């Protein structure tokens, strides 16, 4: 179990910079997700940690000791790839025992370890089978078993479940999270699926274009995104253009007026407003909106509405008083993040849906803005 530090990692492929000056710390026993769209550099980063790519600059340290000069076979890491993990010409037992046999462990010990780790991943009877005889989910589980049997200090997973069907994916990632908690192994998990990251990660590094935009816990990322990209990428977010009206002391977006968070902002400055769907409240006193569609998502409704001057917005509401399609409703903003020059300022407060409680008055508070690339204690 170990601490991982990435210091100023850089990696270029020809003219394209895949990873740009990445500095990151993963704590002992933590499950850190590297999250981002394809091409953001997350897989390249993981491969550099595992030793399969050499950084152009920077250092990788495990428990303070630099491993950048070590080839993959000498690093205390174990990787599970997205596909093609298991060697087709060996049985499951052969696959798992391979690393142990390399290390000249006694036969009895190898057999015991293989048995134990297969039981750990819930596949006690497949030792004698060949990979092609297993399902995709079983193969990935064996791959995880093979990684764990060598008791690595760091477990690396590269989108291991994205090739499985949706339900299996959900099941497998919960299993991995459970396993990780039980064993307490430091883990780095790459994914492009933000729901996956939000579900299992202790902390998430959101990456974009080779840069770490924000490193935080899932809840902080959701509630306090520090860049517009993170705000838009995590969860659903309404992003709308807005403008400063010094005269009114307001930030204007379409029909809405929010209190100006900082009186020093010049008049006419263009800013962006990010509003979560649950922070758009149906209120007859609010701005006029035309309901385009109402979607039933189980225990709540998602409403797609057109707001003049802003366009389409999504809002969540409960099922008690559903608006009808084509209806005119009023919508007000309970909480928004105003992004000026890429920095967010919070305006208002999220309302907890509670019957009978009056909404709090809108206040403006400045959220702590942080420079990019440093790791933060989000907890």
């Amino acid at each position, binding site marked *: 179990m170990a601490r991982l530090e990435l210091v100023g990692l850089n990696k270029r492929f020809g003219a394209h910079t895949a990873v740009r000056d990445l500095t990151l710390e993963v704590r002992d026993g933590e499950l850190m997700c590297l999250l981002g769209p394809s091409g953001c550099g997350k897989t390249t980063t993981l491969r550099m940690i595992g030793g399969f790519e050499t*950084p152009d600059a*920077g*250092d990788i*340290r495990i428990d303070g000791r*630099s491993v*950048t*000069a070590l080839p993959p076979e000498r690093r205390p890491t174990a990787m599970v790839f997205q596909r093609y993990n298991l060697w087709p010409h060996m049985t499951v037992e052969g696959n798992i025992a391979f690393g142990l046999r390399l290390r000249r462990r006694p036969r009895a010990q190898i057999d015991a370890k293989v048995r134990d780790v297969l039981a750990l991943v819930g596949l006690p009877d497949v030792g004698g089978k060949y990979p092609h005889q297993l399902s995709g989910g079983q193969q990935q589980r064996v791959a995880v078993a093979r990684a764990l049997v060598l008791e690595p200090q760091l477990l690396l997973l590269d989108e291991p479940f994205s090739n499985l069907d949706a339900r299996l994916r959900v099941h497998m990632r919960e299993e991995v999270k459970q396993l990780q908690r039980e064993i307490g192994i430091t883990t780095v998990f790459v994914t492009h699926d933000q729901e996956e990251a939000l579900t299992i990660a202790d902390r998430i590094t959101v990456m974009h274009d080779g840069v770490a935009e924000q490193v935080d816990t899932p809840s902080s990322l959701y509630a306090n995104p520090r860049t517009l990209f993170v705000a838009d990428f995590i969860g659903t977010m309404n992003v709308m253009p807005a403008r400063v009206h010094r005269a009114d002391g307001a930030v204007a977006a379409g029909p809405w007026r929010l209190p100006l968070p900082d009186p020093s902002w010049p008049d006419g400055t263009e800013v962006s407003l990010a509003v979560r769907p649950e922070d758009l409240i149906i209120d007859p006193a609010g701005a006029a909106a035309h309901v385009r569609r109402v979607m039933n998502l189980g225990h709540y409704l998602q409403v797609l509405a057109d707001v003049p001057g802003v366009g389409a917005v999504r809002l969540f509401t409960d099922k008690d008083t559903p608006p009808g399609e084509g209806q005119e409703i009023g919508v007000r903003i309970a909480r928004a993040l105003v992004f000026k020059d890429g920095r967010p300022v919070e305006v208002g407060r999220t309302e907890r849906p509670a019957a009978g409680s009056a909404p709090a008055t809108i206040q403006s508070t400045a959220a702590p803005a942080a420079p990019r690339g440093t790791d933060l204690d989000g907890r």
Partner: protein
Amino acid sequence: MTAGVQGPREAGSARIRGAGWRQGALGLALVLPPLLVLAFLVALPAVTAVVETLTPAGGGGPTLANYARVLAARSLRADIVFTIVITLVSVAVVFALSYPLALYLRFSRGRAARVLGVLFMVPLFVPVVIASFAMITFLVNHGLVSTLLYRAGVLAFPRLVYNGTGIMLTQVWVNIPFAVLILGAGLQAIDDALIDGARDVGAGPLRTFLSIILPLNAVPTMIALTLLFIGVFGSFTIPYLVGGNAPAMLGVTMTNYLTQYLQRTEAVTLAVLAFLIAAVVGAVYVASVSRRERGAA
């Protein structure tokens, strides 16, 4: 944040700097043995041959006299033309037979397709000497085909061996597997969805073939055609055993000049000429393969 430690970081950078260079050196080292064999047993003799043809018999500077002499001889010119014609006809026939076969194997299921899939590979495992001999016994007057036709009442039988026709038929027999394999591999790479999409929009089989399959399979087609051309053009055994005396294909002519007339220089000059013609076609191959490699990269 720990301060940058110089030692480990430098070690890391050293590995970074060394890795690319080391891989290049290793690659070249591994490739060296067969490359040496190639250089020693192919490149060196080839270059020696070319130099020899450019050097006049009595000494002196490089000259094209040998080539002029060879091209002036009517019989040799006839042989060159004959070789080109037979090669073009053979390649065309192989292509005309192999493409439908490759298409059939790509799109049909069922027993007939499976049997045919094994059958077409058979000539691949038959040595060319045996193939030539077998074709002779099959096609010669009073051979199997002629006997069958005679029994069926057909009395006239054309001359099918010891001439260009015999060479052509044997070349076709020998080269079908290779052509079907290359074309087939290219067809395999065309996803069913692309074909279905065309049919969905209303294209019939012929239209689908012309507009979708043919263009998408262009590179393997080029590869097959050029390799076929080079193979048939420079062949020896088949024209030697199955062909007539004159005109002869260049492979035979060269050998005759060497072993029968003992005119070594003429033989080598012809070899270089044949190589140049093959090289032009080969250049087309390289161009089309490079395009594919770049596209795939």
